[in-house]
């Protein structure tokens, strides 16, 4: 079953454990510039939002890649993968991504984007609040939709 990495900003506390897990699994150290996921916080509003690659079906980064380094994975569904061996570091993918989710890191001469840890995302393991979830694509919004439906249910119960 194909899985999707879901974000739940309503549950995010801005602790950045996802970033730390991402940095560590990729580099074995803690370097903010190495994270593929970012939890941005707006202190005044008290809101935090985790941001990471959406693994687009019709991915702009794949389209603009002149060498095929950025490609849909053949082994894992819902993954846009990056092949460092054929990448020429032209950085077109970083320009094309409308979300800013592909980034060039000069320190390691690499393109950083979420690789879902090849189907076992560490950020999900480390998130203490369930703000990141790795779920079947057929079920991705079922719980969210049902939770919202429950609010209608409560409202209807009150008026009926």
């Amino acid at each position, binding site marked *: 079953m194909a899985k999707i990495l879901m974000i739940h900003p*309503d549950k995010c*506390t801005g*602790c950045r*454990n996802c970033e*730390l897990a991402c940095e*560590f699994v990729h580099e074995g150290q*803690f*370097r903010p510039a190495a994270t593929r996921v970012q939890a941005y916080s707006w202190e005044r509003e008290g809101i935090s939002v985790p941001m990471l690659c959406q693994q687009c079906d019709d991915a702009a980064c794949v389209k603009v890649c002149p060498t095929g380094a950025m490609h849909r994975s053949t082994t894992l569904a819902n993954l846009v993968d990056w092949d460092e061996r054929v990448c020429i570091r032209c950085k077109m993918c970083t320009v094309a991504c409308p979300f800013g989710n592909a980034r060039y890191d000069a320190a390691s001469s690499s393109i950083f984007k979420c690789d879902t840890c090849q189907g076992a995302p560490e950020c999900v393991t480390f998130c203490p609040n369930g703000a990141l979830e790795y779920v079947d694509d057929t079920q991705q919004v079922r719980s969210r939709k049902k939770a919202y439906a429950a609010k209608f249910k409560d409202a209807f119960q009150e008026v009926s």
Partner: protein
Amino acid sequence: MFGWTGTILRVNLTKGKVSREATDVKLAHDYIGARGLGVRIISDEVDPKADALGPDNKLIFAPGPLTGTFAPSAGRFDVITKGPLNGVIAASNSGGSFGPELKYAGYDALIIEGKAAKPSYLWIKDDEVEIRDAAAIWGHTTPDTTDLVRAATDEDAKVACIGPAGEKLALLANIMNEMFRAAGRTGVGAVMGSKNLKAVAVYGNGAVRVADPEAFKAAVMKSRQMIQAHPVGGAGLKAYGTDVLVNILNQIGSLPTRNYQDGYFPTADKVGGESLAAKQLIRPKGCFSCIISCGRVTKVDNPAYQGAGEGPEYETAWSFGPDCGIDDLDAVTKANFLCNEYGIDTISLGSTIACAMELFERGVITAKDTDGVQLTFGNTAAMVEMTRKACTGEGFGAKLAQGSYRLAESYGHPEYSMTCKKQEMPAYDPRGVQGIGLNYATGNRGGCHVRGYTIAVEVLGGAGGMDPRVTEGKPGLDILFQNLTAALDSSGACLFSTFGIGGPELAEMLSAATGVEYSLEEFLKIGERIWNAERLWNLKVGFTAADDTLPERLLKDPIKTGPAKGMVNRLDEMLPGYYQERGWDESGVPTKAKLKELALV
């Protein structure tokens, strides 16, 4: 180096000079980092008799070796300096993301020296360090300052700053970071103000490395699971914040009420964490690497007290609430927001207003002194108005902003100041909880609960629990907590992680992170070393055993109502044993043998 970055940054504001030095490996090991390392540096470099608000005092920002890693809830830093409220060696702990950012920029500590000729702020981006003009941001609140500094530096910079209170050298001033996190107590914000330093902004691109990544991850996963499985660390604090303690302390009659005139407040529930969650909480918030999320993002809609921000913590809900005879949560939270914005300590200010209320009710002061305000217990509007005045320093507020000791003493009645070593005690009545009284009396920064949080055992049942009303065993309990906390603070961990883990887990994570083996015994020994180093400093300032005491009210006037009715604190049954178990002489001075054992001579 692993865990540590290996570099200390030194900025002399008088000379406008920036320099770097290598972190001394032995010193780092022997004092861990953060609070411990800062205490060592202050002890070595600052004359204990120096004017806390003069250019000879130094101000240190120091994260610990675990800061910046994914050790759970361990992203903290300390501010270490001579505290102007009372002259003690100050170590104020804060979370947010400022500490980790300092590590990523490459520094184990930032030492600020001297005094800038004009209002300035510091911008640190990795190796680039600039002292910049702060004329345009001087006078602004802490959230506005943060925005202005970010606009002038980097939108993702982490900013520690003072508000107007620190600029005016209010002795209750805090340093705030990420807008709502506070390095509070003892007036550290006034030290920053005295140096004409409005803010420190940091952005780092470097890495924090650990010595044994596999062992470190294994130790971290174990600690995470232990905290998440704990009812307080894993669930209670996220659901209700620290304010959950209001009802717990009130139920045992140890919620100080009306400036410690009583220990029970019948309507306390109205300002408790459950009420907060129901009425004001928008969502829980976590500091960097936190898995506990005790932070409260809150909003008050009530037009009289409208506002948004973070808080209140338990101590704040108490100080502006029951200690002022108030049960209006909207007013309490509004007072908290004001304190955040102006950068002032909520525990001390609430307690100081409570002191002023008692002075007013006893006729020591009148409406002539209080700018016409009827400052009686339970007067909610007056409490918020006095908070606002203390924040801005106008009228009677200027006196309040210097703390209750100076206030009460100026009217000839220091006995109404609920302080230890001139610092306001927090929200646990030592008459009903004996051990915390000993901790207040011996606390190295004066009245303070987070030097030795015996409440965890005496009230919350940790480690099998101990009866809060007995004095037996309390010296040992206090010493254990004081030593453990000194070492824990120095690692970069949050005190609340002890709701789940303890010394063994912290020592294990430290060992794997730094590559230097810390045994549990050694970890606690380092805590004891830090505690004694702080004590030595305070003795040199001029403190004596006579200062290791509580306000007379707590020793002689029994609690009047509630479950702890009739009780007083029996400090005299505990203090001699404490000195003895500490290896100090009868005057509270560490013996030569103890200092030798701790490598402090």
